[in-house]
């Protein structure tokens, strides 16, 4: 349940902004601290991952999801980073309908097998970059949900009911339910 003391403004708009740029939805809601935290963690992870993969680990390919050899499962996670991963989708769509055409000079286009093999031969950075960028997208799903519905457990600093209050509540509930009264 949403805590009314947490300003969510227009939750759908905030969620859309949170998807477009991690943290932007929270800035829109005036939750600046969280906006910085999400932007720093998610965009930071994505940027480092993209760098480790030499800019070749975020790309999309329009194939059936059942074609497991060719389906780009990692992009399903990366997609949720929003704008930073969107050129890959635009690039793949353009190339799907107009093979050979390029958008932004081939930025985030599917790399050739030779380029990919070369990157994999260099060791782990490419794979680590893939993990970073994918996890960044998945983390933004949590941030989007936070922008839409507020924090899952509320503020978190509410005082716990004291033992006496708890007992009274239990007794009152039992009486309401028609339980034995001594």
């Amino acid at each position, binding site marked *: 349940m949403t*805590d009314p003391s*947490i300003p969510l403004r227009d939750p759908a708009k905030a969620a859309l902004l949170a998807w477009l740029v991690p943290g932007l939805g929270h800035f829109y809601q005036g*939750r600046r*601290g*969280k906006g910085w*935290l*999400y932007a720093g*963690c*998610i965009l*930071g*992870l994505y940027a*480092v991952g993209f760098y480790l993969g030499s800019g070749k680990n975020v790309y999309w390919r329009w194939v059936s999801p059942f074609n497991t050899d060719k389906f780009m499962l990692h992009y399903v996670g990366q997609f949720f980073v929003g704008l930073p991963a969107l050129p890959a989708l635009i690039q793949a769509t353009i190339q799907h309908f107009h093979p050979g055409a390029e958008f932004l000079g081939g930025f985030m286009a599917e790399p050739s097998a030779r380029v990919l093999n070369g990157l994999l031969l260099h*060791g*782990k950075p490419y794979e*680590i970059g893939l*993990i*970073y960028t994918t*996890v*960044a997208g998945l*983390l933004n799903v*949590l*941030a989007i*949900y*936070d922008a839409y519905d*507020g*924090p*899952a*457990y*509320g*503020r*978190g*600093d509410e005082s716990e009911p004291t033992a006496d209050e708890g007992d009274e509540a239990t007794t009152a509930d039992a009486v309401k339910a028609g339980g034995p009264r001594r």
Partner: protein
Amino acid sequence: MNGAPNIYWFILPLVVAVSLVYTASRYESWPVIWARSARLCLWILAALIGTTAFLLLVNTQS
């Protein structure tokens, strides 16, 4: 040992980011977010170190 950084160091920023974002999505109060994300971070690291130690223990390869 080559000059490349040990890949295990790359786990640290990942765990820190996951802990902070996860906890921030659960709570709104900053003291609670800091305290719980630190605790979650330690739990994840302990689980990873424990798993790695176990794998080293049962490892039969050089």
